[in-house]
């Protein structure tokens, strides 16, 4: 396997974790977050500092999970105060604040970022394998949650918070749970990203990246684990496969986002389901 293929597969794995975890928050539980890059970045920075300080891989993973989740819970508390589009605006604000804060902090490397992060010692193939295992685990967890009581409660809260509360579902607790789990996984993705690049700077976690992740979720079909995972793979490969797309990445992503919302709001998953039903009926 060439170094190029290994790096592409690693990035795909990271994006799958990010998109699937965002889908737990925004798809299952209906809490639109356009600041997922901030949690990704928090995990990346926590892992980088831990690696520089101790060189321990398990500690770095733990630090990323915990810090991502802590920031996520803080934003989760915001979701108890504000809803729908205003929650989205809040998460956008969190993303801008994260980048604006990190860029000014000398201990986080400021504008230059953190470089020379110690390697995991697994080699590129080992890192890639680890990333793929975590991606598979994330998909499995997402599928499990989707079928569990918690997944049912998430969807109830996402559909109609008032009705969910009437049914005795503690909407606030489930929103916090969705944010806590989803952002912990985003932190994990950040840690894997740090292992993969060994160099991080704030710009990699900016708002545009968060919009890209939301585009993966919406295009894949918001709420569908498989749809979102497939979209994450496809939309990561697309710019690599087609030169045109690589040059005009934002044009394509932005355009697809508008077209999907406008013409097929349930995304790829919805289209596949419709096609499947049509075939079965005929």
């Amino acid at each position, binding site marked *: 396997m060439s170094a190029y293929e290994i790096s592409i597969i690693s990035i795909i794995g990271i994006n799958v974790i990010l998109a699937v975890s965002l889908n737990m928050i925004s798809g299952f539980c209906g809490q639109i977050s356009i600041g997922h890059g901030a949690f990704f970045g928090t995990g990346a920075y926590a892992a980088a500092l831990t690696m520089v300080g101790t060189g321990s891989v398990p500690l770095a993973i733990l630090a990323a999970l915990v810090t991502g989740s802590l920031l996520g819970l803080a934003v989760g508390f915001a979701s108890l105060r504000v809803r729908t589009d*205003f929650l989205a605006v809040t998460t956008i604000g969190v993303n801008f604040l994260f980048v604006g804060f990190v860029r000014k902090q000398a201990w986080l490397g400021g504008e230059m970022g953190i470089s020379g992060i110690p390697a995991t010692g697994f080699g590129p193939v080992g890192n890639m394998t680890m990333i793929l295992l975590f991606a598979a685990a994330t998909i499995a967890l997402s599928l499990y949650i989707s079928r569990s009581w918690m997944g049912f409660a998430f969807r109830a809260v996402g559909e109609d918070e008032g009705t969910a509360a009437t049914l005795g579902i503690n909407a606030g607790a489930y929103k916090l749970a969705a944010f806590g789990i989803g952002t912990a996984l985003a932190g994990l993705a950040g840690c894997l990203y740090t292992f993969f690049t060994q160099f991080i700077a704030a710009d990699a976690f900016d708002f545009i990246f968060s919009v890209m992740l939301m585009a993966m979720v919406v295009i894949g079909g918001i709420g569908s684990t498989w749809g979102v995972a497939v979209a994450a793979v496809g939309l990561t490969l697309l710019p690599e496969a087609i030169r045109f797309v690589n040059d005009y990445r*934002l044009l394509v992503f932005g355009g697809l986002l508008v077209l999907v919302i406008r013409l097929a709001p349930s995304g790829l998953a919805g289209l596949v389901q419709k096609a499947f039903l049509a075939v079965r009926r005929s």
Partner: protein
Amino acid sequence: MGGGNGASPTAEDDAVYYFDLAVTGISFGCMYAMMSVGLTLVYGLLRILHVAHAAVFTLGAYVTVLVANATGSILLGFLAAMIVTPLFGMAIYRVMYEPLLKYRPDVPMIASIGLLIFMQDAFRIVFGEQGITFHRNAFAFTTFNVFGVTVSAVQIATIIAAAVVFTALHLFTTRTRIGIGWRATVSKPQIAASFGIDPIKVRYLNFAVGSVLAAIAGGLVAEMNNLVDPGIGFVVSYKALAIIVLGGLGSVRGTLIASLVLGLVEAYGTIFIGAWLDRDAIAFLALIVLLMIRPQGFTGARTA
């Protein structure tokens, strides 16, 4: 700029420096106001956060610079922008928002973000990454000395433009039949409709007026930077979201106050908190704090 000239700063130098920051803050505030009022108008009528307003702003900046360079008249550039952008704004409503009104409010908002990044990349592809400068920009380089502070003609033009535009808007909405019908539709759509006001026409009017204001703001920012690049509207777009929330959602007066306050806070904030936070992040800090304390904004009564 003001400040000491290497020697130990005197009290007078300090005063000049603070006055200089005030001028910068107010002119930025006026620009934010012209940008944000369009968002407030759309929010007040349709309850949509019109992020793609920044694309209208950017289009306004491009049309201004292109026409100004082609004709040699900056005034013609502004006029052309004020004709083109309302058409674009109304098209956004017709093609994108109208069919999405039936969904939750975050759906049109995400579509709006998608449209904005699409348009930004389109501007980059069509007009190039480096951006376009004015061939002749007498405005930006003419400066006046006011109480020892250097003030550029663009800053003065921005403040005057904002004063004229908002006075005109005020007169339009209080003294003309169309304006009164517009306000009536915003506050009580059904009753206004039963008095024979066409709500759809009001929506188009709304987008047209907001877009004209954004075009003026875009042209002025282009003058101020003497450059129009694809990212000109990027940060402004999200700041405008913060401003309309701070201004109490749907309230034009609140938006004006919030814009001026933000302009001044940013100008002075760079001295006090610039060391640990980017200037552009100040608006979001204020936004998040306010949303957590008062989710309904300063004045609004709705529950967000």
